[in-house]
């Protein structure tokens, strides 16, 4: 039974260890505490930047480790994710290029 199972896992699936999952979980909680703490420090225009940077690090940890993307052998999944991020950034960048330059209103 055991042998058959490890055979199956090595061919297709990554089983995440409890230790590494708990480590990622702790990192996410620390990130949450950091983002609350940083909100009370006056960083001028960089408050938003720091908040979004911490959120993006947390999101990356979730995608890579909790959603198993780091261990997937399927390259299409990574391409689909990169495409989603790219088009989302186009949405934001082109919208702000418009609203940010309406100096006459």
């Amino acid at each position, binding site marked *: *039974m055991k042998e*058959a*199972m490890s*055979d*199956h*896992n090595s*061919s*297709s*699936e990554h*089983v*995440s260890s*409890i230790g590494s*999952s*708990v480590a*990622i*979980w702790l990192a*996410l*909680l620390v990130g*949450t*505490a950091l*983002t*609350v703490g940083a*909100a*009370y*420090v*006056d*960083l001028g225009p960089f*408050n938003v930047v720091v*908040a*979004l940077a*911490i*959120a993006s690090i*947390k*999101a990356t940890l*979730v*995608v890579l480790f*909790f*959603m198993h993307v780091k261990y*997937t052998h*399927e390259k*299409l*999944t990574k391409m*689909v*994710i990169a*495409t*989603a*991020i790219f*088009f*989302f950034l186009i*949405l*934001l960048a082109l*919208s*702000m290029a418009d*609203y*940010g330059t309406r100096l006459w209103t």
Partner: protein
Amino acid sequence: MHNSSVATANHEVHDNPALLHHFATAEQQKDAASLGMWLFLVTEVMFFGGMFCAYLVYRYKYFGDFGSASQQLSIKLGAINTAVLICSSLTVVLAVRAAQLGKRTVLVFWLLATIVLGLVFLGIKADEYAEKFEKHHVPGPSFHYHELLPGQAGLPPADRRYANPSHAEMYFSLYFAMTGMHALHMIIGVGLFSFLTYFAWRGKYTPGYYTPIENAGLYWHFVDIVWIYLFPLLYLIDRHR
């Protein structure tokens, strides 16, 4: 159940009852299901993306008023809810792990833990919404807003400036649209996990077939990621002033 999972591993192509005839191998079937789930999540990124874009445009235009309105929210409740969701993501990871290892009762336990944490999140959210109704901070005919702009409390009363109520109303419209859509996704997630718990308890998922657990897990993590961005954007504007 023991017998069937051994058979699954040894003669995957012929004997796996979960393998549909149009897939060559169970692995190919699994990859196709996973890719389909990711494509669905891409549409979700663009769905929430539209609201994030609207938020960005109005925050840029009404920065001070958004700061004022943001400070009406409780950081404590928002942070607790963030922690609750992060914990629920861990329980989902442990549920997927239990499914991969074929541990039925452990799987049911972590699925139930996820449902409980999801309900805790929704309960705290409902409490926050109730407070907004009491303070008339819900957009609509009874909306009322008379609060200072950030950093004005230390000034002499005559010099203090107040936020523009209609700009604050825009903030609360976005707040309810974004957290409401997020909460709807949580409710759907709790429903999904209830079905999964039932089928897991019946022993439907084996190390050879646990795609529904894996894909529902991807959905749950995605909803968690949306909240990871919503929390700083909605709760933490201009708190240092």
